[in-house]
């Protein structure tokens, strides 16, 4: 299982992500109990059912899912996981920026998939606050060095909405 970094520590993950097995569809898949992160397609087709059965709901966005399509539902989610199918697929950064800055999402925002040490600084800047580091990576070193690569950034971003030029002494 992926190692979860949250609140500057390695934490046990209480959430399970619903995965569709071969032949299962969003319509047919059984909805398990517990703290579940539902893929966007399942949420879309089974929304009412999920809301009636679950108090704590998580959502998984793939890199080609559109934030706009889920913008009205954000209050339902305790956690939104954004998938990075490959670490070089940068769409998840825009997804996070939009969720935080445009749609005001306040819950946990988790980077999942191909999440590596060298992306953590950028991920935090766009608004992620938990990270399921890829299996087999040195999570301790990542925690020590990955978030503090740089002491500041020039741009306006989620973690610092004022660009550096507005903060220059």
């Amino acid at each position, binding site marked *: 299982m992926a190692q979860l970094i949250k609140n500057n520590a390695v934490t046990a993950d209480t959430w399970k992500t619903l995965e569709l097995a071969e032949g299962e569809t969003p319509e047919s898949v059984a909805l398990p109990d517990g703290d579940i992160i539902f893929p966007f397609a399942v949420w879309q087709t089974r929304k009412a059912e999920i809301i009636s059965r679950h108090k704590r709901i998580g959502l998984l966005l793939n890199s080609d899912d559109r934030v706009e399509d889920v913008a009205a539902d954000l209050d339902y989610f305790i956690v939104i996981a954004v998938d990075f199918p490959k670490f070089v697929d940068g769409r998840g950064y825009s997804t996070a920026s939009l969720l935080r800055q445009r749609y005001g999402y306040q819950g946990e925002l988790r980077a999942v998939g191909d999440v590596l040490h060298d992306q953590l600084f950028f991920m935090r800047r766009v608004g992620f606050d938990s990270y399921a580091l890829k299996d087999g990576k040195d999570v301790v070193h990542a925690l020590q060095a990955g978030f503090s690569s740089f002491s500041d950034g020039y741009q*306006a971003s989620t973690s610092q909405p004022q660009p550096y030029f507005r903060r220059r002494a």
Partner: protein
Amino acid sequence: MYKYDAIDRQLINERVEQFRDQVSRWQSGELTGDEFRPLRLQNGLYVQRHAPMLRIAVPYGMMNTAQLRKLAFVARTYDRGYGHFSTRHNCQFNWPKIEDCPDILGHLAEVDMHAIQTSGNCLRNITTDQFAGVAADEVIDPRPLAEILRQWTTFHPEFAFLPRKFKIAISGTREDRAVTWFHDIGLHLKEVNGETGFTVIVGGGLGRTPIRGQIVREFLPWQHLLTYCEAILRVYNRQGRRDNAYKARIKILVQALGVEAFSQLVEEEWAHGKDGPATLTQAEYDRVAAHFTAPAYAQVAGEDASFAQHRQDNPAFARWLERNTHPHRVAGYRAVTLSLKQHGVAPGDITADQMEIVADLADHFSFGELRISHEQNIILADVQEAHLYALWLTAKGAGLATPNIGLLTGIICCPGGDFCDLANAKSIPIANAIQARFDDLDYLFDIGEIDLNISGCMNACGHHHVGHIGVLGVDKNEAEFYQVTLGGRQGNDARLGKVIGPSFSAEEMPDVVEKIIKVYLDNRHADERFLDTFDRIGIDPFKNLVYEGRAHGKAKAAQTEAA
């Protein structure tokens, strides 16, 4: 020139440490080759034909002499005593060891230099024209906004992993010298009703699918530079293709959507960010612009007597003045181009010794600053006319005064098959062979203005598409051939050249160029440049002479069969 402050310096020092850690994690196996690759590319480190290649950023081409001396030091200590200036103003070293690169970057950081985002699928180095701030036809100095863009693009958290590379050029002159029509974003500064802003061009590019960019906004007030670029980049990051690297540039997205629909998407996106905190302030503009104020020019009354005398007495000096110096907006001054196109040398190459000579010249004669041009030459932008003769003598002695700027042998040429892993063919020997053929300076002057651009493959690093004569290395059955285009050009009327026909072998190339020149000389009207003649008579006369008596393709096959 912009001077780093504490934060600028801290960020590049932190970058050195970050990269050191990445190299060491790669060496220990914690980072796989696939994981390390994009990281090293974002630090300008390629793995090439013979060795790694390290590309050092020269933001918008500006450098001071301490920086140039540091490049000389790196060339001597970690390379083979020379460096190469590229068509994107950057400095490339072809023989460093990967394990030395963190140390090299450490040395460079001492003089505020780095290799950040000089490659990879990210926001690349910002470019502008080499005469920024001194050009006689300048409307607005692009450098402060180029620097503001440099900062904005550096480690942009949302746009570090784009579908493909992303290049922005900015021009502030009436005549565009920054090839803005062929960049992912081209910004053309202008003044409308007393307000400063840009025409925004998107979706241009050379390479495999050369496309001239299109205007997505006629006028954007300068304060909105960052928020508007942010909107363009966000649309591109979300909607650009990632399934096919050849179709991943923004030009393909703009083509697929159509420029109206694309610009509509950008406007919708921009509506959210417009007037937000990233809107530029006058205070920030003024702070940055203060770094680009004019140096302490001498008050020069009339023409210097010794300068006039030397010009009269010395035809070689006069010739150099004509080709290698450029009008300056301050009386008594000129901008000097030091030619890195000495015949027989790889275009853009410069030895460590030459770098030091240039640094001395810049210190003595040009306020300690210099620029790199996208034509791969060095500019000393602020030289008093009275000093030109002394400067020329030194430059000449160092092989930096070949008077061929804008002429046929002032060739733009990529490193090609001698160095580049992507090449289909060699390009440096072609450039050298053409230089050797046209070694007669009088003849060269008589031919007049011609841009000859050579690329070793369709990535078009040598900008062959926009050469008046363009040469592209192609691979046919694993042999090297060269395809010729005519009529390409940069500037306000930037256009792609047209292919004249089947390609040629390396040995044929000097003859081919000679025939093209012959057609021009035979047809030109008085004072007509090559390009004017070409536009007037069209491509056919050139084709006819170049392919005269030559069968090719199926025709050739039929002949061979018949024989």
